[in-house]
C-alpha cells in the first residue's frame, strides 16, 4: 500500500474510523454501550458518532452489561450487526452468560440454524492506575469458549483492519483493545475496504535467533527489547497472533523451527494464560525437535493488579524481562 493512501492517527481514532466506515456501509450496524453517545465513550472512542448516526444507531444503555451483551445477541440473531462497548473489560463478568451460554453456543446447539454477528469491544489492561477491578486482561477466559473469536490489535492500522473484519464477521467477536495503546500513533490505510483477516498470525519483525510471540502492549516491549538486542547482533523474530482464538499456529511453529528458541509473553496472568496454550501447541508440533532450550513464558504475576504505580509496573512483563529471557535462551547470562 502506498503511504499516500495512509494517514497518521491514534489507535483510538483508528477504531472509531473503522466503526464509522462500517456504519456508513451497512445500516444494520448499530452501536450500543454505556455513555457512548454525547459523552463519547469512557475513552473517547465513540466521540462524534452520535452526531453522524443519531440516537437510533448509537444507543446509550443503562448500566446493565448483561442487557448490553444479551440485547446484542438477540439483535444479531435477528438481523442486526451490533457493536458493543463494555466500558472496561473487567465488567464482562456481568455479561458472560449472554456471551458464553447464549451468543457463543446458539449456532452450534441449534444445529447451524443461526448466526450471531456481533462485536464486543473490551478495553483491557493495566498501566492506568485504576487498580484491580479496572485493569485486567481476561482474554484467556474468552479463548476457552468455542464459538467465540478473540482478536487483539496492537497498532492503529491493526485496530482499524480488525474492527472492520470483526464487524463483517458472522460470529461473536471479542475485540480486545489495550487502554495504554489509545494514544499510540501509526499509519492507517484510508481505504474503506481495508480489513485484516481474522485468524492470521503475522511476523512483526523478522529474525533468526529467538522467537517471541507477544500481543497488546507487551508486543511494544518485545520490540523495544529486540531493537536493543539488535545492537548486540542478536536477531529476534517477533510474531503477533492478532487473533488469539482460534489461533493461527503455523507461522509460530515455522519460526520456532527456524530459531529453536521461544518466548511467549502477555500482560495477562501467566497461570492459565494464552501463552501456555501456545507453548503446548508448539511442543505438540514438529517444532519440538528443533527446540534448543527450555521455553520461557512471560506473563503477569499471579496477583490482582495493584494501584501503586511501581507495583503496577512490576506486575506485568517489562522490556528487560525480554532481554534477560533472550540472554538465558542463548546462554549469555
Amino acid at each position: 500500500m502506498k503511504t499516500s493512501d495512509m494517514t497518521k492517527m491514534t489507535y483510538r481514532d483508528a477504531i472509531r474510523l473503522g466503526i464509522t466506515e462500517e456504519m456508513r456501509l451497512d445500516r444494520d450496524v448499530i452501536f450500543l454501550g454505556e455513555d457512548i453517545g454525547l459523552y463519547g465513550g469512557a475513552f473517547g472512542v465513540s466521540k462524534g458518532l452520535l452526531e453522524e448516526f443519531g440516537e437510533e444507531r448509537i444507543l446509550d444503555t443503562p448500566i446493565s452489561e448483561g442487557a448490553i451483551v444479551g440485547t446484542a445477541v438477540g439483535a444479531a440473531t435477528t438481523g442486526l450487526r451490533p457493536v458493543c462497548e463494555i466500558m472496561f473489560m473487567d465488567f464482562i463478568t456481568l455479561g458472560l452468560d449472554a456471551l458464553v451460554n447464549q451468543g457463543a453456543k446458539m449456532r452450534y446447539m441449534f444445529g447451524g440454524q443461526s448466526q450471531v454477528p456481533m462485536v464486543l469491544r473490551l478495553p483491557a489492561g493495566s498501566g492506568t492506575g485504576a487498580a484491580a477491578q479496572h485493569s485486567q486482561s481476561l482474554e484467556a477466559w474468552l479463548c476457552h469458549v468455542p464459538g467465540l473469536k478473540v482478536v487483539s490489535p496492537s497498532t492503529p492500522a491493526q485496530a482499524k483492519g480488525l474492527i472492520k473484519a470483526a464487524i463483517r464477521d458472522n460470529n461473536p467477536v471479542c475485540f480486545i483493545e489495550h487502554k495504554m495503546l489509545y494514544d499510540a500513533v501509526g499509519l492507517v490505510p484510508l481505504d474503506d475496504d481495508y480489513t485484516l483477516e481474522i485468524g492470521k498470525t503475522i511476523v512483526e519483525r523478522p529474525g533468526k535467533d529467538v522467537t517471541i510471540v507477544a500481543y497488546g502492549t507487551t508486543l511494544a516491549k518485545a520490540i523495544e527489547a529486540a531493537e536493543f538486542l539488535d545492537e548486540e547482533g542478536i536477531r529476534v523474530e517477533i510474531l503477533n497472533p492478532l487473533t488469539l482464538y482460534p489461533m493461527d499456529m503455523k507461522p509460530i511453529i515455522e519460526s520456532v523451527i527456524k530459531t529453536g528458541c521461544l518466548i511467549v509473553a502477555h500482560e495477562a496472568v501467566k497461570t492459565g494464560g494464552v501463552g501456555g496454550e501456545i507453548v503446548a501447541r508448539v511442543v505438540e508440533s514438529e517444532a519440538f525437535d528443533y527446540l534448543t532450550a527450555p521455553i520461557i513464558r512471560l506473563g503477569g504475576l499471579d496477583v490482582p493488579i495493584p494501584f501503586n504505580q511501581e507495583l503496577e509496573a512490576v506486575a506485568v512483563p517489562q522490556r528487560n524481562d525480554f532481554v534477560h529471557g533472550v540472554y538465558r535462551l542463548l546462554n549469555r547470562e
Partner: protein
Amino acid sequence: MIELSEELLLRMYYKMNQARYFEEKLDDLVSKGQVHGTVHLAMGQEASGVMACLALEEGDLVSLSHRGHAQAIGFGLDVNLMMAECLGKYTGYCKGKGGSMHIADVENGNLGANGVVGGGFNLSCGAALTQKYHQTGKVVLCFAGDGATNEGSFHESLNLASVWKLPVVFFIENNQYGMSNPIENHMNVENISDRSEAYNIPGLTIDGNNFLDVYNTVTKALRYARAGKGPVLIEAKTYRYSGHSKSDKQVYRDQREVQVWRKKDPLLKMKEYLRENRVFTEKQILKMEDEAMISIEQAVEFAKKSPQPQLDTILEDVYA
C-alpha cells in the same frame, strides 16, 4: 371479548392435546430409558404455553423457556422434528445437538428454548430492538418461569425494554416452584406482575389454566406492544404435574396438592367450555383428541426411525 372462530377453537384444542400427548409420550420414553439426558415437562401448563403463542400474528417471534414443548407446539413447530430432537436424531430441529432444552426454529422466529433460567429475557430485548429498528411491526413473546424473575437479567431486561419502549411481552408461567423451591420461599410479592411497577409498565396476573384468559390477555398485550407503547409483563398462574426434570423425586410437595390442580386441568377446562357452548359435538371433540394423539404417535415413529447424526458432524456449525 375477542371473537373466537370455530377454526381457531379447533386449533386451540388440537394443539393443547398435542402438547399433552407429546409430553406423555416423552415421559414414557424417558421412563423406559429411551431418551438420553433429561426433559422438562410442562403437563398442566398447556393453556399458558399453547394459548400465548396462538395469540401471535404471523412473523412475531418467541423465546422459549427450558420447559418449552407446549410453547413450541403452540408456535407451530413440527412435532416430528421436535420429537426427533428430543431423541437426539439428525432429523431433529437442531440435528441432535440441542435436545429437548434447545429446540429452536430461528428462521421462523423461534429463537429457541433456553437452558439458562432467565437467559431469554435480554435476547428478547435484542430481537425486539431489531423489530423496532426495522419497523417490522412484529412483537417478541418471551417465555420464562417464576424462578427466572429472580435473576438479574429479568431486572436488566424489563428496565431496558421499558426505557426503550421495545415491542416485547414478557410472559411468566408461574408454576409455583423454582425446581423444588416453593414460590413463597423465593419471592416476597403476592403476584409476580407486581414487579412491573418497578419499570412503570403494565403488569397482569391471570389464570394460566384458563385458555380464554391467556389468549385474550396475550392478544391485548401484543396489541399494546405492537402499537409502540412498550413492554408488558404477564404472569400466568399454573402448575406442573411432573417433577422439575427426570431426576426429581418430588419430595417437596404433597401429591394431594397435585390432585387439587389436576381438577383445574387446562384441557378439561377447555373441553367443558366446548361442551357448554356447544361449539363442537362430542364426536368432533373426540376426533380432535384422536388426531392429536395420532400425530404424536407418528412423531415418535418418525423420531425412532430417524438416523443418528454422523460422528463427523461434531465439528460442524461452531462458526458461521
